[in-house]
């Protein structure tokens, strides 16, 4: 018996890691946009849902998972650019709650557009043929698709990290987050940097939605819970800290997965309890700076 439950625990742990990867992707986009634009993007959940629907739509047209996987970030980046340029940019001078409220409205509109175009019932979508079935890892069998999701997350995060830390464009992004005035004085068009970062954040959110589609289902409201989960991850990890988002996201996925195994009734509430505990001890989050929380 001990063997069986240990195997189940491992399975639950891996399932949690895959779920955590989705959290990490959503929270990364959120943190990226907040860190640079100082906007809490309440449309992020809707971007996630839009990405999933865009992917399912592209899959229906082309029949190729890989083409969809490229189409989703491209389409989402275009959407993000349009929203940043025409809606958010005029609001940058105002109180931070105005862009926040605007993205809140965008979320409403996107979800309702999804309902109009694709119906309210949700669309069945399963993993592509190559990823169906399971692999044996030691003595447990784990769905192939989830392994793919984990690999894709690692690849994406590495690419993002390389972009931000190692390229000259990333240098501008980091400098722009610290002091937009100085970067502007040095002759950089910061509005282009904002645009790019918002587009990347949107694309990552959409990609997360599409990757999660075979795991968590495709319904218009799919973004609501994931947005709140991402908020919890961001608050626990520390606002603006990418490392915090990764660690808190993976931990949260594992905790939820294990709780749903032992005490299913509490799986929805456990992450809020953790967030409350973290807020009591470290209001700025585990890896956050105090000034970012103020």
């Amino acid at each position: 018996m001990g063997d069986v439950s240990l195997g189940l625990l491992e399975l639950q742990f891996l399932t949690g890691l895959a779920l955590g990867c989705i959290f990490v992707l959503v929270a990364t986009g959120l943190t990226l946009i907040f860190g640079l634009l100082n906007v809490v993007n309440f449309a992020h959940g809707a971007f996630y849902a839009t990405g999933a629907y865009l992917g399912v739509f592209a899959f229906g047209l082309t029949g190729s998972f890989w083409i969809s996987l490229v189409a989703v970030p491209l389409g989402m980046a275009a959407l993000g650019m349009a929203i940043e340029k025409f809606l958010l940019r005029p609001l940058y001078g105002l109180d931070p709650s105005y862009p926040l409220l605007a993205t809140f409205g965008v979320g409403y509109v996107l979800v309702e557009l999804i309902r109009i175009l694709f119906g309210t019932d949700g669309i069945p979508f399963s993993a592509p043929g190559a990823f169906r079935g399971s692999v044996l890892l030691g003595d447990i069998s784990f769905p192939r698709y989830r392994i793919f999701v984990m690999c894709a997350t690692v690849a994406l995060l590495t690419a993002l990290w390389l972009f931000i830390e190692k390229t000259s464009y990333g240098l501008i992004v980091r400098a722009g987050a610290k002091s937009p005035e100085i970067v502007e004085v040095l002759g950089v068009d910061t509005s282009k940097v904002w645009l790019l970062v918002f587009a990347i954040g949107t694309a990552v959110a959409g990609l997360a939605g599409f990757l999660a589609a075979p795991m968590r289902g495709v319904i218009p409201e799919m973004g609501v819970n994931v947005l709140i989960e991402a908020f919890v991850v961001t608050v626990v990890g520390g606002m603006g800290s990418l490392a915090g988002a990764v660690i808190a996201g993976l931990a949260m996925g594992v905790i939820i997965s294990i709780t749903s195994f032992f005490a299913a009734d509490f799986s929805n509430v456990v992450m809020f309890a953790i967030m409350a505990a973290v807020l009591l001890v470290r209001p700025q989050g585990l890896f956050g700076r105090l000034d970012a929380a103020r």
Partner: protein
Amino acid sequence: MRLIAVQTQCNEASLVDERPSPFGWPERHRVLVSAAVLAALPAVAPHPALAINILIYGLFATGFNLLFGYTGLLSLGHAAFFGAGAYGCGLAIVALHLPWYAAILGGIAFAALAGAVIGGLAIRTSGVYFGMVTLALAQCLYFIFYQWTSVTGGESGLRGVSVPAIDLGPLHLSLLDPLSKFYFLLFFVVLALAAFSRILESPFGAVIEGIRENENRARASGYALRSTKWMSFVLSAAFCGLAGALNTIHLGIVSIDTLFYTTSGTVVMMTVLGGMGTYFGPFIGAALFLCLEDLTTNWTSHWQLIAGLIFIACVRFFPAGVWGSLLERIRK
């Protein structure tokens, strides 16, 4: 640096209630004037249910406005307090068999308690963090009530909360008559408005507006920021709880949707639409929002799309809201 510039600009946008109005009399007797305007609602509204909804959601938005418009804290989880008031009142009647007046008090108390806990956690953070934490904790309350089916009825909501008639000595009111119900609810709304006005005029009201205008200055002036914000949060939750309790008396059921995040969104939209930081703006916003909803649902089921678009347009072009912009125009 950007933040500082941002803050001064925002303050100008939300500076609506500061200067003395050229209309001294209505300003000084704003509770009476607003009571008179609200009392006339059934005569203008297309149907009594809409008038009642304007009362309830106007009060909800007013309570939210205490925190958002006057203290400057944007909570995105105020559905928690509307829902707590609604469930508190409903459970007091269904489970505890309390009379209606005790049930209303129970609703307010439960909402204030929820506000004390959620607010206590949320005010440890500030700025944009605050909105995320309030939204997350409100959603936590939603999950608890959703799953606790044996007490709350879960997905199908709490049913059978009927208050058919009110007997107060010689006074007998049948709540089955929509007009009687409207004036019964109006009584509580006016009481709440009087309390609200009193709070704004008190030193406490001055301090919360000081916090909104410049937190650092308020801190430097020696005010206890945390406890003041917390108090404002609890008071705001109590007003929203009353609105929720009245909604339960009105409908006779409590839907789980009262706790859902869309309810929080609705109250934000109403307040911004009407004008944040104004005394009567939330009622104007609630009235506009509900009338638009009433009109559009006749020809489309996708009301949320229209609500979202109007809201975006309002944030983009009319940040002071309809009533707020009107007041600015008059005062110029």
